[in-house]
């Protein structure tokens, strides 16, 4: 972490369509360790929101407990945040989303927060297809309590202290697809080029968008023998392809060689332009997504990129038929049945 942030901003800093420079999307100074993967992810969130022309106050940031869950303080200082309790961010996000369907809900969690204490709430928020981005900053260990293995640590992975993890890892991305998540992406904190368009697509997706981002812990899990160290991850990343996110009504300018490109139209009219590197993999087909992930796993590799997307699903609000007006904005006149109705009710109880 650093104690000082430069206040100098170059006058020629580019502005987005809303007239904001990128620093408008920053948060308070990070207190995470220098070199923490999480800070790179936070920077990617800032960049993605700036590029997407998001009004920061229309975003609600939510998290549980842990290093990752401190992150919401480090981006979008003009957004409300809720750093809740360990493993329970999904329920808080669910309630918040039910109260106001018009905000963008950005949940940040870690592998401890999601894959252990929060597993129950995680699987159920996936099932409900809550319209939110759920980002796991996954480093395979508990940083704040000094590096114990987490449930996503690979079997055989060596800790800093030299102990070898005996237990099978929980593969959150596969699990999310299995549970019916409608957008699943996997990435690496060191791959900003992939992370930013992936994040933009996740934020534009209507429904549950899950991002599992391998984010090495420089202090407790960056040693030789760890399968979540920077070196190991860099060597074992296998990308599904490169992608561009093209917001609604923007011109598609990226060019790829013919035959490799497929466009996916998002709910809001935006496009994901995908340049596939994997054969026999179709991101709109769950089976092929799971197959591709399993094959990569077999080879000891981490498949990254957009893994699966289903743009035709119903989110929680559609399923339970809530009003288009946010529930927190409906007036008493509409909510309260009044004294006449109560009089009739009294009569029916005599």
């Amino acid at each position, binding site marked *: 972490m650093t104690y000082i942030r430069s206040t100098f901003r170059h006058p020629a800093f580019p502005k987005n369509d809303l007239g904001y420079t990128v620093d408008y999307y920053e948060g*308070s100074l990070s207190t995470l360790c220098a070199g923490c993967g999480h800070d790179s992810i936070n920077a990617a969130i800032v960049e993605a929101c700036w590029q997407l022309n998001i*009004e*920061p*106050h*229309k975003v*609600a940031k939510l998290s549980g407990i842990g290093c990752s869950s401190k992150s*919401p*303080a480090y981006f979008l*200082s*003009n*957004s*409300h*945040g*809720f*750093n*809740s*309790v360990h493993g*329970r961010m*999904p*329920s*808080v*996000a*669910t*309630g*918040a*989303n*039910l*109260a*106001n369907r*018009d*905000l963008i809900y950005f949940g940040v969690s870690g592998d401890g927060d999601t894959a252990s204490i929060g597993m*129950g*709430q995680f699987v*159920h928020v996936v099932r*409900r297809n809550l319209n939110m981005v759920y980002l796991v900053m996954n480093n395979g260990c508990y940083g704040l309590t000094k590096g114990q293995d987490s449930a996503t640590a690979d079997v055989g992975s060596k800790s800093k202290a030299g102990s070898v993890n005996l237990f099978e890892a929980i593969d959150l991305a596969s699990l999310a697809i299995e549970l019916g998540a409608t957008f699943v992406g996997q990435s690496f904190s060191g791959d900003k080029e992939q992370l930013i368009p992936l994040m933009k697509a996740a934020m534009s997706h209507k429904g549950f968008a899950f991002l599992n981002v391998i984010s090495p812990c420089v202090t407790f899990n960056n040693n030789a023998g760890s399968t979540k160290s920077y070196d190991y991850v860099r060597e074992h990343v296998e990308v599904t392809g490169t992608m561009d996110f093209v917001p609604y009504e923007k011109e598609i300018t990226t060019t790829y060689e013919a035959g490799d490109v497929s466009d996916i139209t998002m709910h809001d009219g935006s496009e994901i332009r995908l340049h596939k590197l994997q054969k026999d993999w179709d991101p709109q087909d769950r089976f092929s997504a799971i197959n591709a992930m399993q094959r990569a796993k077999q080879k000891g590799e981490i498949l990254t990129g957009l893994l699966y997307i289903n743009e035709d699903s119903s989110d*929680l*609000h559609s399923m*339970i*038929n*809530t*009003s*288009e*007006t946010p*529930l*927190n*904005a*409906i007036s*008493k006149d*509409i*909510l*309260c*049945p*009044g*004294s006449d*109705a*109560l009089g009739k*009710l*009294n009569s029916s*109880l*005599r």
Partner: protein
Amino acid sequence: MSVNDFVVRFANVNGTGSASANALFTKAVFRMGVPVTPKNIFPSNIQGLPTWYEVRVSEKGYLGRREGVDLIIAVNPQSMKKDYADVRAGGYFLYDSSKPLPPGYDRTDITHIGIPLMALCNAEFIDARQRQLFKNIVYIGALSALLDIEFAVLEGQIGEQFKGKEKLIEPNIKALNIGVDYCKENFDCPLDIRVERRDLLGDKILFGGNSACGLGAVYAGATVAAWYPITPSTSVVDAFAKYAAKFRVDAETGKNNYAIVQAEDELAAIGMVMGACWNGARSFTATSGPGVSLMNEFLGLGYFAEVPAVLIDVQRTGPSTGMPTRTQQSDILLAAYASHGDTKHPLLFPASPKECFEMTVDAFDLTERLQTPVIIMTDLDLGMNDHISDALVWDDKREYDRGKYLTSEELDRISTATLMSAVSKISLRTNGSAKDEMSVVMAELDGQANSDHAPSQPLEQFKGKYGRYLDVDDDGIPYRTIPGTHATHGAFVTRGSSRDEYAVYTEDGDAYRRNVDRLSRKWDTAKELVPQPEFFRGTPPYEGGVAAASADGVVLSACDGVIYFGTSSYAAEEALEFLAAEDIHLDAMRARGFPFGQAFRDFVDAHERIFVIEQNRDAQFRSLMMIELGTDSAKLISVLNYDGMPITADNIVRQIRTSFTK
């Protein structure tokens, strides 16, 4: 001869359709203008185990449970032996005489009434399920003759019940008549105990506490309900769903102006409530003791992070799973201090369906006013039984108290205030006109302020910078902002970790202490905001009992006092009358809210000895008084009941009387 004063108990098999037949009986007595109180005594079972429905009829209006049974309808062989023993001397034992009674049923102090229920039904109905269901209706018909219940009243109820399914009316009436005819032919009707029409109920209603809570949540404007099924609270959300479907579906779009989510567990249920309340909706959950245990962590967060939430705790018999279908008031300490650290929560204690309705509405105002979770402490007895209650009342002029939150305009005014203060400093040094102009602008802005939650202090108190946890009004309650309100002002991170007045994370001891001391001031504010106790001088008459005390007149006459709350109130008020007849006169206070305010303390101080009536083993309410008021333990005498059955007046009288024997 006992007119309008007896107890009838129905002994049935769970899952055989007896509940609706038995309810028919209660409603008939109610419609004859006579006070009546039914209690479901049911097992934690879906089908097959014994279940009882006990109805007390009381001309004097005693609505607590009474000991002893005057008439038992014993149609469950499994429990018959015990049911037989429970009949009071001089009482009646009604049984199905299709088969002869086994040996041993030979009491001479009671009257045996054998009706061949099964044989009568088999003769009249062909369908096996009908035979079973109508057996229940036949004994209701029998009671109509035996207890002199007006047949037309029952007929009317059948008509209402099967409106739209008219085909069912005729066989039901037939079944009633089978019972009536058999009794008139074979017994002297009516019996010594019977019902006689009165006009004692005015416009009162017959309603359950859980239904009243669910309805209250609709009236209070709750839009998000998250819950996990648990007896005896499940019917709170069922009622909310029913009334919301009736009143909250937009006629044009067909869309719901509410959301109900069955959560994966209680932890998630309360988490959803916190998320919704944080985001400016009114939201609640209902649970029972085991659920409150699970919700502790979030309740602590709600207290410290100052997030509103309404929790309805329908208490049941603990500890652990306890007796899930029996009543108790045993979550008092759990709820008051739920979670780790210095945590405490306001509690409301309703004692009737009307109060369930009103206090649910009040709870939503309180939780937003205080920005802290508020817990409604009802119980199985109140929640799952019908009770005679005053009619529900709603004042259309009542506005929701959304507490202190800042609108976008108000956040602008806070920054305008900075501007003005800067301008005024400059203008003081010049000719003053700029300041005058800014004052006019500020006055205009004040005039535009949204008045239904207008801050009680000028926004200048913020000195130009919004602070989420600044105590600008000196009542411990800060101003919150709702996500999405303003582009550049008012955003902050809500967290369970310590922070300063501007919501910035800090581990500075002074800042931590300032914050928790402010929470203490807020707690003091809560003392006078929660529902205040009711006081009775001497004996409270049932009808039109007048609270003898006002804020300045709490000191009552007798030297000993009684404190009770919630469903103990029925039996307690009846017991006070019994005791008065024995020349034991006690002042009484019905507690309605926690934390305890000045009036509560004055009552405690004004009496030498105080009997604290409650339905748990460890005298939890008494402990609460000792902890919060520092009351001398020797002064507080416990009157307890914790067998899972609602407390009776007889029990209270027995326990209090021992303190007066010389």
